[in-house]
């Protein structure tokens, strides 16, 4: 399909360029201008941006189809302007063998919506004992290896896993949380947890684990991406590691740049997240670090949970929040609060995560894949869980008045969503 998008405000985070103009698409790629398009889209009043890239979205298949299905979550992705997403390996069974990965990719491909990049399990069944066949898994389509939110307490296994991954140049994505210090905890260990009588996870559970990870990255030379930073201490450690030019990157979840433990209110199970929402000070440090580049990218950490999983006392509720459809409005809210340009804001959900994924997306340059999001940055959006496409209605942002609505999503030159 030869497509012409006219009258839009083009924002290319890769170059930082913003301005009104036309965009041409052919053969699924951004192309030089041409005449006689087969279809023209009038993007008057809309921003034309590379489609969003989400480093963590749980699609719940295989194994948790009662929480969400690939269909529902892929609908949610494109409705949120997300054109590429990485899914963590904590499915049931976990993504620890090539057949599972292959099946997931084929299922996703057949739906013709967003591009799905599976992240393979670092150890068999995520049990933290035996390594997976990483090379085989990579061949089947895994872009990286991780342990999702499952604790990997045995540091010798972690060391070996990083050595092995480094051998082949595979990236390893890790959450930084000391399994023993976090044991039994459900909230940030601080005043709020003390008041509510919730078992706490101290902030140093993250910095201690991150120190270990960084030391092992230094020793092994593995490419490490640290997932979901939650503390100001971890931000400082990442800042130093980057100054030292370690091959490390990191991300933060959308909830953690906006919310803190005070938002637990009266035991709001929608605020039961992994990592836990931390103090106001931590939140502000994360927000700043994302702006100054210490934190590379922002992700939705999309985790659809069914009602049965949330209608429970706080500590018993299943952690996680739905997020694919809120990634853009919450990124815009963050960018406005930090007084960033639109291009700088969008960089954190386009070309920055593309670099972590190692894919050639996130740009409007001719030759780049025609994955686009056309959105109205000023359109009001009242968060109504029932209206979400995702099967997960679990969000602490219910009732929030946000701005930013996706109107059209294009993947590989095909319109996959129109709202």
């Amino acid at each position: 399909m030869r497509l012409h998008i006219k009258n839009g405000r083009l924002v290319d985070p890769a170059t930082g360029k913003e301005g009104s103009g036309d965009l041409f698409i052919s053969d699924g790629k951004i192309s030089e201008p041409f005449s006689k398009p087969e279809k023209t889209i009038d993007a008057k009043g809309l921003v034309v941006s590379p489609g969003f890239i989400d480093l963590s979205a749980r699609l719940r298949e295989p194994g948790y189809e009662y929480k969400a299905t690939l269909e529902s979550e892929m609908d949610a992705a494109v409705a949120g302007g997300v054109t590429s997403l990485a899914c963590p390996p904590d499915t049931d069974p976990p993504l620890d063998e090539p057949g599972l990965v292959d099946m997931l990719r084929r299922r996703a491909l057949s739906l013709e919506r967003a591009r799905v990049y599976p992240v393979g399990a670092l150890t068999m069944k995520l049990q933290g004992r035996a390594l997976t066949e990483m090379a085989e898994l990579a061949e089947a389509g895994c872009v990286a290896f991780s342990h999702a939110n499952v604790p990997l307490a045995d540091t010798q296994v972690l060391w070996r896993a990083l050595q092995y991954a480094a051998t082949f140049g595979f990236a390893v994505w890790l959450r930084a949380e000391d399994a023993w210090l976090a044991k039994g905890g459900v909230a940030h260990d601080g005043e709020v947890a003390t008041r509510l009588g919730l078992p706490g996870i101290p902030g140093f559970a993250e910095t201690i684990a991150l120190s270990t990870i960084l030391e092992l990255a230094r020793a092994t030379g593995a490419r490490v991406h640290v997932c979901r930073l939650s503390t100001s201490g971890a931000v400082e450690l990442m800042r130093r590691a980057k100054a030292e030019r370690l091959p490390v990157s990191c991300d933060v979840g959308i909830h953690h740049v906006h919310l803190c433990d005070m938002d637990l209110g009266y035991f709001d199970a929608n605020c039961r997240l992994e990592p836990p929402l931390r103090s106001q000070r931590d939140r502000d440090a994360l927000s700043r670090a994302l702006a100054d580049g210490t934190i590379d990218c922002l992700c939705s950490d999309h985790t659809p949970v069914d009602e049965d999983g949330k209608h429970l006392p706080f500590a018993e509720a299943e952690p996680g929040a739905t997020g694919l459809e809120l990634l853009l409005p919450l990124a815009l809210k963050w960018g406005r609060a930090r007084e960033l340009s639109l291009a700088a804001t969008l960089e954190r959900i386009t070309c920055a995560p593309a670099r972590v994924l190692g894919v050639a997306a996130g740009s409007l340059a001719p030759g780049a894949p025609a994955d686009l999001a056309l959105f109205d940055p000023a359109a009001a959006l009242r968060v109504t869980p029932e209206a979400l496409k995702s099967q997960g209605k679990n969000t602490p942002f219910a009732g929030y008045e946000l701005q930013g609505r996706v109107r059209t999503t294009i993947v590989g030159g095909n319109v996959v969503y129109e709202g």
Partner: protein
Amino acid sequence: MQRNPQLNAKGELQHLLSIEGLPREVLVQILDTAESFAGVTEREVKKVPILRGKSVFNLFFEPSTRTRTTFEIAAKRLSADVINLNIAVSSQSKGESLLDTVANLSAMQADIFVVRHGSSGAPYLIARHVKPHEHVVNAGDGRHAHPTQGLLDLFTIRHYKQDFTRLTVAVVGDVLHSRVARSLIHGLTTLGAPEVRVIGPQTLLPSGVESLGVRVFHDMRAGLKDCDVVVMLRLQSERMGGALLPSAQEYFKNYGLTAEKLRLARPDAIVMHPGPMNRGVEIDSTVADGPHSVILPQVTFGIAVRMAVMSIVAGN
């Protein structure tokens, strides 16, 4: 911020979930009403007709004979019908969810749910899902709150000491796991007690406990000095011998209340304990049964306080 889920639109007590966040006037109203009910419990006919025709469901997801019994007596003295459900061994083990259990009981025309649950915040979840005419009274949730115990402690203190604004109160022991301590501390600070102390080893004090408005002491002798009220907390045996405490002997030596240590408090100090007591672990028998102890009156007052709470919430 959401509205305090315990209060209705008029600011009246609809559920009792926690002492935290209750205005001073509401606390005083409960204590004054309890004072009137204390008169009733001293009569020959210890019953008033106020909750005639109402049903009180004692929903105990965690076993507790003592608290359940005091709620049962209180409800019966208000002429309510009481149904005891020991959920720990019934539907939950069959996999029924908390809210399904509540919905089922609600269909049986409940008016008050008295809830004991092992998980902090469980009564809030229930209160969010009950019908407008139904009321939830928290009988202890996880480590979070035990508001009727806190209120009966406040009632006891007021009974013996009248004015809160001149008192030094020490809460001794396992504050980390104690819902009783949290409720009492909130109550004391709301009613204007100028100095509330917590005494215990660092392993038994929650992080940032100072934010509750208390002074922290690790040395019991220093902490007891000139106290008007000493509240001993129960130390559960399962806390022993792990990473929290090495042994009951060492704990008693450092944090057990003996007659000798009590002499550091004011001569007219009262000693309280929410029960059940571990004699020789947190408190010596000579103190538990001694002239400063008001542990048994606490139990008696507990009934009047629970009568007050149920009659107030059920009317709002």
